[in-house]
């Protein structure tokens, strides 16, 4: 019993440190890669050298070259900015729109809330991926249209969560007291209700990051994302598909990059959930 209890005790002593290391390292690495991508690429990811096309991995090209002789490693690194950077941007925009509208709707209530609910219902009639495909298809291919389409389907989840927290918290005594004390509504939302929903929303957001990355890549894969010559993992998979039998590394490299990033994002999300979700923490 004692031997079993000891590691638990240890775990309890340093849980925060472990979790914070997890929580900060991955986003920092991703952010660093996004910001420093142009400096990290060993070669110009857009430089076409037709004489070097479809080369196998070698010292000069660690991951080989693609169908236009571009260095694959450089394109994978440049793709971090397009794929992961775009996903983070989508996440930030969805959070901002979703949380703001959700909190206000829940707190103000009445007709506005009912109207807002119907809008949310309309957005949730279709699975988010199908909705994104339809929207992107209607808007046409391109990065900005892709951004719009994914934000349009992703903000809803945060709005619903934020609204439910706002509904719960506005019944609390401290909110009533703040109202009685004459604190402006916007300030009440910002100072008293927002902090309560932030933890849950962040957990949801972290768990969503992997899904958004996959959504971006899959929309690009079917040709609805950034257009050539943009380095984007999904479109690189699409381009490599034609050469799969002759040069499988064209699909394996972006596929592996995508898989590792989504895995890292999901692990990060799980850790964040463990940290903020009281229920899972107690179970652990």
């Amino acid at each position, binding site marked *: 019993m004692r031997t079993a209890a000891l590691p638990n005790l240890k775990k309890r002593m340093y849980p925060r440190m472990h979790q914070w290391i997890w929580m900060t390292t991955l986003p920092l690495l991703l952010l660093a890669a996004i910001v420093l991508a142009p400096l990290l690429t060993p070669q110009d990811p857009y430089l076409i050298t037709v*004489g070097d096309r*479809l080369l196998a991995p070698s010292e000069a090209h660690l991951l080989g070259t693609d169908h236009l002789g571009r260095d694959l490693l450089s394109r994978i690194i440049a793709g971090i900015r397009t794929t992961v950077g775009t996903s983070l941007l989508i996440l930030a925009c969805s959070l901002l729109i979703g949380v703001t509208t959700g909190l206000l709707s829940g707190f103000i209530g009445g007709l506005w809330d009912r109207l807002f609910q119907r809008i949310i219902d309309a957005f949730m009639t279709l699975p988010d991926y199908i909705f994104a495909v339809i929207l992107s298809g209607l808007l046409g291919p391109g990065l900005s249209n892709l951004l719009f389409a994914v934000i349009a389907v992703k903000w809803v989840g945060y709005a619903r969560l934020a609204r439910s927290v706002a509904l719960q918290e506005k019944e609390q005594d401290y909110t009533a007291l703040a109202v009685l004390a004459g604190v402006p509504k916007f300030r009440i939302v910002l100072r008293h209700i927002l902090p309560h929903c932030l933890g849950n929303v962040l957990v949801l957001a972290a768990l969503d990051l992997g899904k958004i990355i996959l959504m971006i890549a899959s929309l690009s894969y079917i040709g609805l994302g950034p257009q050539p010559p943009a380095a984007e993992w999904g479109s690189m998979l699409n381009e490599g598909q*034609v050469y799969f*039998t*002759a040069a499988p590394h064209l699909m394996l490299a972006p596929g592996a990059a995508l898989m590792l990033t989504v895995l890292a994002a999901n692990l990060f999300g799980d850790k964040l959930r463990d940290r903020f979700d009281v229920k899972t923490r107690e179970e652990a």
Partner: protein
Amino acid sequence: MSSVNPVKPRNPLRLLPLLLILLLAACSPSPANTAEPAAAEHGQTDKSLTLLFNVQSNTLDPHTDVNYTAVRAGIAETLVRISNDLSLQPAVAESWSSEDGQHWTFVIRSGLTFQNGQPVDAAAVQASLERAQAVNPSVKNSLHIRELQAARQELTIITEKPYPQLPSDLVHPNTAIIAAELAESAPVGTGPFRFVSFQSGSQLKVERNEQYWGGTVQLAQASILFNEDANARLLALQAKSADIVYRPPVESFAQLQADDSLTLESLTGLRTHQLMYNMNNEALRSEQVRKALDALIDRDAIVGSVMSGQATAAQGPFLADAPFSPEYLPKQFSLDQAREAFAAAGYDVENGLVSRQGKPLSFCLLTYQSRAELPLISQLIQASAKELGIGLEIRQVDNIDEYLAASDDWDLATYSSITAPRGDASYFLNAAYTSGGALNYGNVQEPELEAMIDKLNGTVDEQERNRLARDAVSYIDAHMLNSYIVHPNNFVAFSNDVKNWVTSKSEYYLLTPELDVE
């Protein structure tokens, strides 16, 4: 004395015939390839074959289908055929003649019937040609028919003016002769194969036409599947789910050549990959700008890399050795030459970058996936243009013909067409460079050139026709009305079990009566 025969041990060899039968049964090919006794009695076999084609077809109507599937599949035939040496051969028409190039007499093959048993006489051919002209304006525009007269097996065609290339224009699959009913969903023609079923964009099944006029049809059934993914086509061939594959991925050549069970055929085709300019764009109306953009095309790099050597650099619309090809102006990939041409067109060129009133140039370049090399060629041009500070936005569309016909929001477009499928230049010149021409998507309007083409249309003498065609092509070349990039090879990979396959230079004929499988 009674003798008791001892019980002999059973001879295991007695079972040998049975074992052999079982073995043979196990080794027999799939049921589709097995000869059925009933069919064999008639000297025919119940063999089937699957062909995987690279461009999908959404309709079977031979008069409107830009993919010519009904003719390629041997369902319908035209009055006249073209052989691989580009000579005209009789098909539905037994013979044809004209004294003045304006009044033509086509003798329809006697005793010929449609696959539904209906006789094919001159009236039926007239009805079919009238339908083709009614449903397809480009057929009407190219044939210039003023009047059709049918008398038993003789069809008289009177053209609006002397039109000597009429027989070669009647090779075009859109003029195929079909029975009037159900032309769109289940065409009935005179070809070696009858229609069985069609799934738009997916597959076509046909079966032997027992009454075929041209002799015994070897295959009992055949399927044409459509798949635009070159890799999927290759895998289907390797998995033996297809016997013939049109255009496997060019990168797989070495792999295919190493496979003893397959044959790879590659021959110079009559197709030309090209770059179209939209003349509705003010900048592209300038000849110098078009010349500058042409100088951004690295033809040698495209042949050597993108086409893996399976192509010839194109200097003009037709292969250089064609009798109607002039001495083309030399075309060179040179960024400096491009800069000079832009400067001559009045653009500012500073530090190697081209701009107008301080604004960089940008164009929208259309491309499509069904010819996998075209998006790559587009990216090569895009990279060269970037060196000059010119932005090329590549837009990939699904159906290029539909898009070009319906939209005008493009500046440049990669395109591919068979420019001289019938050994005559006039079809392409009429289609691509006359107002209202079926392939004049860029709205080229050159009265001088149109007059040349007009004169060509009315000339009978072949030498003179070739000379006029050369003049017209020289004009196109000098004014850079289109940029011609490469002539890709026609390549087909097929299983060694396939017999009598002939890769058609014109790409008009895939399933033939002689085609067989072991």
